[in-house]
């Protein structure tokens, strides 16, 4: 295709969209879906679409004391993008972070696409139509320990507990799928929202940040029996039952957020949190060849209900005190090692917000599926690493292989239009 042909094609398509397309839809919330629903009878299909419109209109605030995408409910779709910085100096890095925030704020708040010069490439790919509906989109920005090396003079500002992710027992971390100067966690209700957001963000940082690795995740659908029921991971067990309650602010201050005056922490880290992101391959074919009894004993829960073994409800206390020898729930069962529920281990708890992933097939013909384990904690050494070391000999290790990810630090949220995520580094 010649240059002339290409230009003609572009202007042609713009002309077709015309006034009814880009111009009119700006500000008219979700023109396409809204019109479709209103003009049809109240049949089931239209109602379903109305629900969809409501979900697409759902907005998570971008600015605030803490970043979104941490305590906020996990929508169905996600992508993690780890980036390495190639900018020459700190001020360019700050400009880049500013533009990430601007773009992320706009996309997550759902704004119409403006039109600049008709002959210029449009400012937005337009994949979602003339309006970028918010669709619960969150973009969480975090930094890896490598950003605080000698390149940008940020050494003194490194969050105290931000280190390279240690190699844990059974880890087989592929360097090409681990680490990164900056991590973007993009979550939204629909896959196309996430894909569009990643595309626009990468356009924003072109020439400054380069992609090191990405991973796409999805949530199981909420299949009940209640709204509170935890969703299943790819081993078919409910995952997240033991999570600390996110509405308990006092608990979040003890477990998730870096507190003002925390020992050794630079002041800009206050209100932030450490992210432990681990791509954990789950050998699902292997798992599917394990007897049900053994599966349940490895986890410590009933596969159907999610109840601790011997119990009835998912949220029932496993009562390890009544089972000191592991007759009911083996001493090396996952839930028992992960959270022994003692006073001493209460301060080790982490907030998990993981997603399933599916990456296709490996060379041996097996499904490349697993869990993007994402945990937020105040101190990865006191919390995540302590738990992980306790899990090092659990029987389930035969069925999983951690292959990627890293430790990152997500700073506090932006304070408003003039602020940006990471502005604490500009001081």
């Amino acid at each position: 295709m010649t240059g002339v042909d290409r230009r003609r094609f572009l202007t042609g398509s713009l002309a077709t969209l015309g006034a009814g397309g880009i111009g009119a839809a700006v500000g008219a919330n979700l023109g396409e879906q809204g019109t479709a629903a209103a003009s049809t009878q109240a049949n089931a299909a239209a109602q379903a679409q109305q629900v969809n419109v409501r979900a697409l209109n759902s907005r998570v605030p971008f600015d605030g004391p803490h970043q979104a995408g941490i305590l906020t409910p996990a929508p169905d779709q996600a992508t993690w993008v780890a980036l390495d910085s190639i900018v020459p100096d700190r001020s360019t890095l700050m400009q880049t972070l500013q533009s990430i925030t601007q773009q992320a704020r706009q996309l997550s708040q759902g704004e119409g696409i403006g039109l600049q010069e008709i002959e210029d490439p449009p400012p937005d790919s337009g994949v979602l139509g003339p309006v970028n509906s918010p669709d619960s989109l969150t973009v969480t920005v975090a930094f890896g320990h490598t950003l605080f090396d000698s390149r940008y003079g940020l050494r003194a500002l490194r969050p105290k507990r931000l280190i390279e992710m240690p190699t844990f027992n059974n880890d087989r971390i592929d360097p090409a799928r681990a680490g990164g100067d900056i991590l973007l966690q993009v979550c939204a209700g629909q896959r196309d929202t996430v894909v569009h957001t990643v595309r626009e963000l990468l356009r924003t940082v072109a020439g400054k940040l380069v992609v090191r690795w990405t991973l796409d995740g999805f949530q199981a659908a909420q299949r009940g029996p209640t709204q509170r029921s935890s969703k299943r991971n790819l081993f078919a067990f409910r995952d997240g039952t033991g999570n600390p309650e996110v509405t308990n602010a006092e608990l979040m201050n003890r477990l998730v957020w870096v507190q003002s005056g925390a020992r050794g922490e630079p002041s800009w880290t206050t209100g932030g949190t450490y992210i432990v992101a681990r791509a954990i391959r789950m050998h699902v074919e292997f798992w599917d060849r394990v007897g049900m009894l053994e599966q349940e004993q490895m986890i410590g829960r009933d596969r159907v209900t999610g109840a601790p073994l011997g119990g009835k409800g998912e949220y029932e206390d496993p009562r390890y005190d009544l089972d000191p020898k592991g007759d009911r729930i083996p001493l090396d069962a996952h839930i028992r090692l992960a959270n022994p529920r003692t006073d001493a281990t209460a301060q080790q708890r982490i907030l998990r917000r993981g997603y399933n992933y599916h990456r296709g097939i490996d060379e041996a013909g097996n499904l490349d599926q697993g869990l993007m384990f994402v945990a937020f904690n105040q101190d990865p050494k006191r919390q995540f690493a302590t738990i992980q070391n306790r899990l090092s000999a659990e029987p389930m290790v035969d069925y999983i292989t951690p292959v990627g990810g890293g430790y990152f630090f997500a700073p506090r949220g932006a304070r408003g239009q003039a602020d940006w995520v990471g502005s604490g580094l500009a001081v």
Partner: protein
Amino acid sequence: MLLAVLVVVGAALSPWSGGGKNHPGTTGPFGVAAQAKPDNGDNQLPVSVKKVFGSDIDAKTYGELIAAKEDQGVDLQGHLISDLSPLPPRAFNRPVARYKAYAERWAAKLADQVPSLRAALQSGDRDRAEQAWSVAYDDYLHLGAVYGLLPGTIDHRIDGMPEALAGAAHNPDFTGLHRIELGLWTGEPVTSLVPFAARMRHDVVDLRRALPGLEVEPLDYATRAHEILEDAQRDLMSGTDVPWSGAGVLGTAAGLAATQEVIGTLVPLMQGRENTLIEVQVWLGRLQKVLTQVRHEHNGTWPSLSHLTTEQHDRLNGTLAGTLGALSEVPGTLETTSVTGFPSIKASK
């Protein structure tokens, strides 16, 4: 560990536990103990059975009823059950002893091969050294079912991969077969690898010393029937553990030999228990045939993974997956405990 738990659970919740400590079957209404006897498949009764022995229940009705229930994994009282009577753990003594003797023979073979490998490295001839390495690697993988049982670091010293070590391949603790593999296939001077072969001699001595004392629980041994080839699929056919040589097919063939040995030792136990043995033997035979064909298609040598055609790769992966499906029935077929469910939280007080 798991076994211990199963025994406790089984004892506590046996469906016939109302009578106390009686053996399952002896207090049951229909003589379940009879299921324990191996069945040669023929109906040896002179007459056809009309009623359940000792009762006036129609045999056909009862048979259909219990079969339908068992298909859902529950007994007539609605308790979760396993559908075979358990084997006594001691039944595994002879199979395990036979397997250990087999493993010791291959360890002896490996011990003989290490000096040949060392001589080949000394000669500086890369082709010859790669050939000698392949034989040694093949010998070691024939040990198969001993994985995870060897004391200390023996397995890691002989067959360890570098990922878990700090500094990975540069860590001085990265030795053994894969260290030599790395050197041979990435162009390191062949003679520079001699010290690794020298060290391996000592490691293999430790291996041979350790083998007679290995202990394995019955359920664990039965599980190894499918885990050897699972590991071959995950670590070898994927190329993960043979990144430099690509010797995944060779390794899978060795894993198949070890699996055939395990199953061979278990034949007396598996006979008459479901259809597992036949299924397993059919699939092991298929996999053997595919491997033989592929080797034949590569002029009698094991091809590296990268030299497989797509069609050969498909045949190997597909047949291996099918084989693993058949093998996954082995542990359930060889249950040593009767399992009924978990005690309730209140009952465990």
